[in-house]
């Protein structure tokens, strides 16, 4: 394990609780289109990791293929990154996280990478409740191949070329809740405050955090007739609650009215405060969450916020019963059984 280099910043420079400046969380310059929602998400990831004081050398960043999947290169240069193959990041992440449980894993996918080619691996990742954050940068189309519909495109949504989507969308949040993910949220790249709070909460949770973020494609899917455009999202976003996040390391007295605010204590002791907005919503009620998603679709709204959270659910690593140290760094003395074991096995075949 590396210890982060503790810089001694000039007075007045912004540093986080482990002594790092924001620059330590930055990556390469983005090559995505100007105004792409994905870049805004990258910024929120940088904010969240910085503010939570997470050592980038203890992070692994993974992705599949597509515009979204390029973005791990644009944050946390000093973290190991893996841009894998189309739709198959979940399996790579599973092998990596299980083999080094000390790492904090962030996966970035897109709506095609998750909902089409990757749906098989996505649903099984959700079932396993592997500890990782899985962000879908959802723009309802394939940007890198110039704008074809993806499976999250809404019925009746129209491409610039006039093509109308005639199949119903896959709701990745409903799927994730149904299949066992223990932290499921939906947000909008144009709602920085909410998105950052959700990401910080996700960094405090143990289990699969599935976060679907509407992230408009300014080049191919930001026109009238699209249901994934900035203006459509702004008009139809329906936050379930005002999300506030109180990290465990900030010694502040949290004052809230239990009548209007639901408090959820997360794995590491951080608190999530959800101040009710539109309606009475309890994010720990699975059936309620699924119903709400259905109802909001019927109202042509997209509900955002923390849809479902189950803070104490057993994660995949506990289920596997593996040792506390990373499997990958175990010494041969612990991974190669002694001669007596081989002798015993040989005896059984005599």
């Amino acid at each position, binding site marked *: 394990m*590396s210890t982060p280099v503790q810089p001694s910043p000039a007075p007045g420079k912004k540093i986080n609780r482990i002594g790092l400046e924001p620059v330590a969380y930055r990556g390469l310059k983005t090559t995505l289109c100007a105004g792409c929602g994905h870049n805004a998400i990258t910024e929120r990831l940088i904010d969240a990791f910085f503010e939570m004081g997470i050592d980038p050398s203890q992070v692994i960043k993974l992705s599949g293929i597509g515009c979204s999947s390029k973005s791990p290169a644009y944050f946390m240069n000093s973290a190991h990154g*893996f841009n894998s193959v189309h739709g198959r990041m979940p399996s790579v992440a599973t092998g990596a996280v299980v*083999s080094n449980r000390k*790492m904090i894993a962030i996966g970035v996918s897109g709506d095609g990478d998750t909902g089409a080619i990757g749906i098989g691996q996505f649903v099984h990742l959700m079932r396993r409740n592997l500890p990782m954050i899985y962000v879908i940068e959802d723009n309802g189309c394939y940007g890198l191949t110039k704008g074809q519909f993806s499976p999250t495109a809404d019925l009746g949504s129209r491409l610039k070329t006039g093509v109308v989507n005639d199949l119903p969308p896959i709701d990745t949040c409903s799927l994730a809740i149904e299949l066992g993910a223990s932290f499921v949220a939906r947000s909008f790249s144009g709602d920085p405050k909410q998105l950052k709070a959700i990401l910080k909460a996700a960094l405090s949770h143990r289990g699969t955090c599935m976060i679907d973020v509407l992230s408009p494609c300014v080049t191919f899917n930001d026109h009238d007739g699209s249901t994934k455009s900035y203006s459509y999202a702004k008009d139809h976003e329906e936050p379930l609650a005002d999300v506030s996040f109180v990290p465990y390391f900030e010694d502040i007295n949290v004052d809230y009215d239990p009548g209007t605010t639901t408090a959820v204590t997360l794995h590491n002791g951080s608190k999530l405060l959800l101040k009710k907005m539109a309606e009475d919503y309890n994010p720990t009620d699975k059936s309620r969450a699924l119903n709400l998603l259905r109802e909001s679709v019927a109202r042509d709204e997209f509900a955002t916020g923390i849809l479902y959270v189950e803070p104490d659910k057993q994660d995949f690593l506990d289920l596997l019963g593996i040792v506390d140290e990373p499997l990958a*760094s175990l010494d041969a003395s612990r991974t190669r059984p002694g001669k007596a074991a081989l002798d015993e096995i*040989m005896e059984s075949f005599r």
Partner: protein
Amino acid sequence: MSVTDAAVEAAGPREHTQPIVNNFSIQVATVNGSGSQTANLVLLRSIFQMGVPVAGKNMFPSNIAGLPTWYTIRASAKGYIGRRKEVDFLVAMNPETAKDDVASLAPGAAVVYDEPLKLNTLRSDLVFYPVPFDKLMQPITHDAKLRRLVRNMVYDGVLSRLLSIDMGQMEKALRKQMGKKQKAIELNMSALKAGCDYAEANLPKQDPFVIEPMDKTAGMILIEGNAAAAIGCMMAGVTFVGWYPITPSSSLCESLIDYLKKYRREPETGKATYAVIQAEDELAALGMVLGAGWVGARAMTSSSGPGISLMAEFTGLGYYAEIPAVIFDVQRCGPSTGLPTRTGQQDILSTSVLSHGDTKHPLLLPASVTECYSMAMDAFDLAEQLQSPVFVMMDLDLGMNTWMARPFEYPTKPLERGKRLDAATLKRLGEFGRYRDVDGDGIPYRTVAGDGMPAYFTRGSGHNEIAQYSERAEDYARNLDRLARKFETARTLVPKPEVELVATGKVGIIAYGTTHWAIEESRDQLRQEARLETSYLRLRAYPFTPEVAAFIDACDRVYVVEQNRDSQMLSLLRMECTAGQIAKLRGIPHYAGLPLDGRSVTEAVLKQEG
């Protein structure tokens, strides 16, 4: 009738005065799901315990219950453990196939059969032993299910008497097979005795086949290749297994799971020093393995043809992003679903270049259960040394059938973990370049998450020496050239072939994997029957080492014998040989789904030799 002992057996129906000792094949024809496996293994083990070399081969359908299954046991005093085509002693238990089974026998063979089948009316040149199985089972148990399962032990009892297999050995083998299940042992012993007593009272010996004690199996074990490979994986210190069930490879990971549970949990905490995940498909299985290998775990998967095809994309990523992975291919018959329960060596060519673009992968080629064990360990070392996927090319015959072997030796070599960057190396190099060839062997240094060394970005897209995205022609070509150089380094690291150059043997044979056992027998036949001395090279890995070209140069003609239609290994040889060497190569392909037998090789060689 055996045609191997031509001098004894050439004269048609046998005179029974001359016994045939420890040199014949028994075939048991049953219905799958009828519990015959216990009876067959007890029979095999009893002969083995008497010191007689044996080999057991199961020919089974892709089905759970109700279809024909044949189990063949070959006893061979000379130690031949390859398949032998001829059946000398048939146990006909399956009414569906009984007539065909009897029709296929050579004159002089013996048949034990279920009396109501009345097989004795079919031919007059065989020895028939009718046994009333149901009647013999009546006093043993009233439970219909148990009766069906234990019924097969009756033929073991009959054979014990007819073939002079010691009843004490039968009982010992049965106890070994049943473990501590006392009630089951008693029930099976009753059936065994009933068969033996019936044969003694009613079936006078009329055939020449006899088992006599020898001393050729002392200290040896009987094991399936999949279990042997699993033991090798555990001893290699595997820490991550991602797999998806497929015949005939499932029992490799299933055995491994059993061993890991027993031997790889920390005594104090009970926690596992490994993880096994049954993936959603083979794509995910290899994806998980690459993720695990990427962070530094010793990771493996096991599959067969259809699964290997699905792994193609990830294999290419492993090759290009340079991530260690061990992949077992327990080959079966393709194309497509093919014959899932039949054996072959049909994935050689496709696996050597699995995935799109310019890729090539090392293949290890175990011929024996001992090599399944040792090459499993070699594969993990090679994968980490080469930072690349390495395939272990087994087959169904090796993986699922029972083979004799000396007990496996405990590994003395430390694990090879490959070039991992550390502080001292970083200081020496001055700078970390993930894909920079600093030693001239094509193998760069790598770092893994959490090791405190510099991070890098792993990708399947074009990259330069410092792992940056690059579409520059020079970067791309330099990288591909280095990967080719790395493959040349692989040539110096893989197991070398076994070579037997005979001074007078200008005719050479190249073979690999389980084909070896047919070659061993065929070379003796060629020597004894046709006075043809042959030189022999058994490949143990791809890429080829310099011994291969030298062998071809030393021969006038080289027969490349393998179990596929298109002479796939010959094709790989052609890619590397000179025109003069290529002119010497002749393919002997075998693709029946059944293991290759020595006689077929002998006939094919003699036909071409003229």
